[in-house]
């Protein structure tokens, strides 16, 4: 059970890895994405993306600004303009 997670900025591909779950700060509320999520697209408000590597682990937070998230067959792709770790 792994979710393909990609975090991309204009300057580079920040993350491309398999994770358990990612919580994304969507424009209309946070949403968690697990593997097998239905196709979904949302804009993002500035905030932290929480990445859970495994089921019980503490989340890793990545601050992002301006962007949107897309969930498809290939996993979750977050496009952000600015990223600070």
């Amino acid at each position: 059970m792994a979710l393909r997670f990609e975090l991309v900025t204009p300057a580079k591909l920040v993350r491309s890895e398999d994770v358990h779950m990612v919580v994304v700060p969507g424009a209309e509320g946070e949403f968690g994405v697990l593997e097998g999520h239905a196709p979904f697209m949302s804009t993002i408000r500035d905030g932290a993306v929480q990445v859970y590597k495994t089921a019980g682990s503490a989340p890793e937070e990545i601050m992002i600004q301006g962007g949107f998230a897309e969930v498809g067959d290939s996993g979750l792709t977050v496009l952000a303009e600015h990223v600070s770790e």
Partner: protein
Amino acid sequence: MASLKELKGRITSVKSTQKITKAKQMVAAAKLRKAQARAEAARPYAERLAAVMASLATKVSGDNAPRLLAGTGSNQRHLLVVVNTDKGLCGGLNSIIVRAASAKARELTAEGKDVEFYLVGRKGRAPLKRNFPNDIGTQFDTSQVRDPGFEEAEQIANEVIGMFENGRFDVAHLVYPIFQSALVQDPTVQQIVPVPAPANAGEGSVNSGAVVEYEPSEEEILEELLPRFIKTQVFGALLEIAASEQGASMTAMDNATRNAGDLIDKLTIQYNRSRQAAITTELIEIIAGAEAL
């Protein structure tokens, strides 16, 4: 015929010129590699954004499409965003960009449209101002920044979008070189506002056939996405100009180094010839003097 001392001086000066051009060539080669890596790194973002744009743009069309996609309904006033370099020593790069921009401007003027320029980079200003003294609008300065990056692209795009929303122009084109290789940079004119309908419409990255949920609505997402798309286009142009500048500079400096080498060879031969001539004359004088005794 130049004296021996003069020749020697000229040889030294050409040699030091050659050293400079050679150093500049090596610097450009190193920077080119970096610029290419940066252009490479920007590709995933641009590709994904274009794919999402394509799938969204087909869904949202007609009357409720945002103005950045649909346009103002007229195409009378055109804005040419011309991206040039800040520094020289890069061969004919800036002049081919200026030529492409001027050609586009003349074509538009011939059709009776109004043209305004938005200049990025220092080198294009003078020639364009000479050709179109009344049409130069804003100039964006990138000379203070070492590597123009996304932040500059953001500023440029925001300014252009602001001008569009204030009704300053109807259509905007971006003029920049596409980096093919160190030898070839193709000047390109690309429409950025209104955003042209994506070519690969319908085959986005989103699951084929599956129902995609949007949050908020498609229109709102598209509205957010369009400015971002324009920013990415401008950013791409900045990366291309950076790579092109270094590539063109490398080629130009390679040529200059080779020319300096040829010149040094020629001058050295001339120097040796006149030295030998001087020695021969001296010998003849000594022999003639001895014989006279």
